[in-house]
């Protein structure tokens, strides 16, 4: 039976969040915590694969205790099991330390049930790096397939998967061995409104929660702030784009106006890479 693990993260809703104008950092208390939207697509894709080929979907997160809510959201979408690693010693992790900790948790999940496929979101809406997925793949020494926008087929018996990857001028269809890791794009699917029985299941669900001590072969030095070589040297807000100008008049007038603006400022357009 296929075992698919989706890695998920709880993030502040950055559509609503307020920035602290003094420090330029997010005021996390100002926005509700939600399931990273890309990760909802990862879970949904896992559930679709399960529905087609049979199997079990687990989700894994590293986060503080309230992140249980994000796991419950995944159960609503249709995941079967939820695992969470939560410990003060994980705090302050950058992508390197995050992928290390998640890999240790995946090792433990493997022992419960071998993992065939790992799904991640394209990126988080708070950290935005998109590095954690490939980081996990590298540590597990399995192929990372990023920018996946379609899962064509999963052949567990033959041990391979066929997916469509988004590339700059179209997409490529590639086959990879299993197990492997996919980072999925938003367009891969639509997350439907969860069924009532799934809502009930989620309301009752208690995830498995592990601390550092529950994991094996952990090098404490590689966890959390200590294991994070990333240094934030400076944070600043990008300058707001300048006002701009509204063109008025008939469509023809407006075309004339915009043409004269372009001709007038042609150096500007050339400097930006035009010719």
């Amino acid at each position, binding site marked *: 039976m296929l075992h698919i693990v989706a890695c998920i993260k709880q993030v502040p809703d950055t559509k609503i969040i307020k920035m602290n104008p003094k420090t330029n950092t997010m005021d996390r208390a100002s926005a*509700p915590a939600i399931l990273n939207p890309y990760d909802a697509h990862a879970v949904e894709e896992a559930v679709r694969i399960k529905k087609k080929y049979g199997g079990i979907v687990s989700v894994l997160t590293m986060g503080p205790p309230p992140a249980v809510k994000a796991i419950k959201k995944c159960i609503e979408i249709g995941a079967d099991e939820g695992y969470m690693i939560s410990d003060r010693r994980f705090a302050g992790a950058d992508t390197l330390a995050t992928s290390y900790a998640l890999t240790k948790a995946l090792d433990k999940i493997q022992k419960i049930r071998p993992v065939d496929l790992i799904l991640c979101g394209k990126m988080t809406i708070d950290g935005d790096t998109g590095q954690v997925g490939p980081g996990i793949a590298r540590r597990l020494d399995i192929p990372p397939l990023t920018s996946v926008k379609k899962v064509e087929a999963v052949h567990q018996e033959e041990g391979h998967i066929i997916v469509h990857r988004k590339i700059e001028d179209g997409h490529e269809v590639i086959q990879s061995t299993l197990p492997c890791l996919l980072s999925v794009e938003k367009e891969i699917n639509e997350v*439907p*409104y*969860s*069924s*009532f*029985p799934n*809502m*009930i299941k989620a*309301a*009752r669900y208690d995830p498995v929660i592990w601390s550092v001590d529950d994991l094996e072969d952990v090098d404490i030095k590689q966890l959390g702030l200590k294991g994070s070589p990333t240094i934030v040297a400076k944070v600043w807000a990008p300058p707001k784009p300048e006002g701009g100008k509204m063109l008025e008049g008939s469509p023809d007038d407006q075309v004339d106006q915009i043409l004269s603006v372009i001709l007038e400022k042609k150096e500007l357009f050339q400097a930006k890479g035009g010719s």
Partner: protein
Amino acid sequence: MSERFDCIVVGAGPAGIACAYELAKGGAKVVLIERGEYPGSKNVMGGVLYRQMMEDVIPGFYKEAPLERPIVEQRFMMMDKESAVTFGYKGMEWGKEPYNNFTVLRAKFDQWFASKAVEQGALLINETVVTECIVEEGRVVGVQTDRPDGEVYADVVVLADGVNSLLAKSLGFHKEYRPDEVALATMEILKLDKKIIEDRFNLEPNQGCTIELFGDATNGILGTGFLYTNKDSLSIGVGTLLSGLIKHKIRPYELLEYVKNHPMIRPYLQGSEQQEYLAHLIPEGGYKSMGKVVGNGVIVVGDAAQLVNAIHREGSNLAMTSGRIAAETILLAMQAGDFSEALLDRYRVKLMNSFVGQDMKKYKDSTHHFDKFPQYFDQYIPMMNRAASQMFTVDGKSKWEKQKKIWKDIGSPREKIKIARDAYRAWKVMK
């Protein structure tokens, strides 16, 4: 077929949560279905939570619940255009355990209250709308939700879906409200520094003040306003009968702007920042507008049953008490294995014998009375203001002379009799 429950409670406001809490505590298998993202996310209340009825559900709740401020002072402001006669009471006994009332923000409070029901074993399902009751052979046997595979079955369904309960209406329990049976209230939560609030309202930390506004607060339309202190915000709102808004062709937010800019109110709000704008209906038809509250397999509680005492701005407490009594009745019905209207009617009887029913009856004429006789708001409050102004203005005239003038200004002997009669009537409906 989907899972069965002993009871489905629709709506996680004070009524529904109190009911689910008591049911779960009594060992029933109960599911509480709420359409909002979380309980309280859409709920609106000026914010006075009455301690007694909450303690009937969770004794000593104030030790852990997210409350804003215990209220130590209640003021009543009779407003004219540029003046106000204010009276009030402040007492330190209200500032210590067990307290009297508290201001609350419902988004926080309901969420906490619901988490207590979950602790007792109730299953809370958010973000789910109940679209109709499932009726089989003349009895309610479950509900349909808007989700895939969305039907749920139970022995009893409790409708706690708030004012204008579409579910109770579709069962034929009540009709569409008339515009003079429901008030539309709008309010804002204004962020203001804690220290400024305490200075402005003459409070110590952990003390709160409520001001009820009458007369010009609603620009002459029958209704009331309020200004309450929270920890680091103020709640200000106005509520008027829908019929009044229609008659005066004024939009609710215009009325709120009016009171916010009133010279008696503006200084309290200075420097504050709008945090939230909310609007909600209040059922104010009272006892006479109450519909059917019990049927086979179904009970209606809280605002859905029109349980609001408009004169005293009480609603959440009536809601909680009705939810609690409904739960008691359902636990009894479970023992008897009988969920018929005949047995569940014990809820109605008990409710009408409790303070809820007594107050509903006592104030049955009050809103209608003030709606029928607008002179209370149009004439008497300005009259009070003029009298106070004349009396307290020191201009060399003797107080005796002033009293004579005030008396004369009130009008002819006939008008004086009319005022005396009105005063008596008002006292009778409000006492």
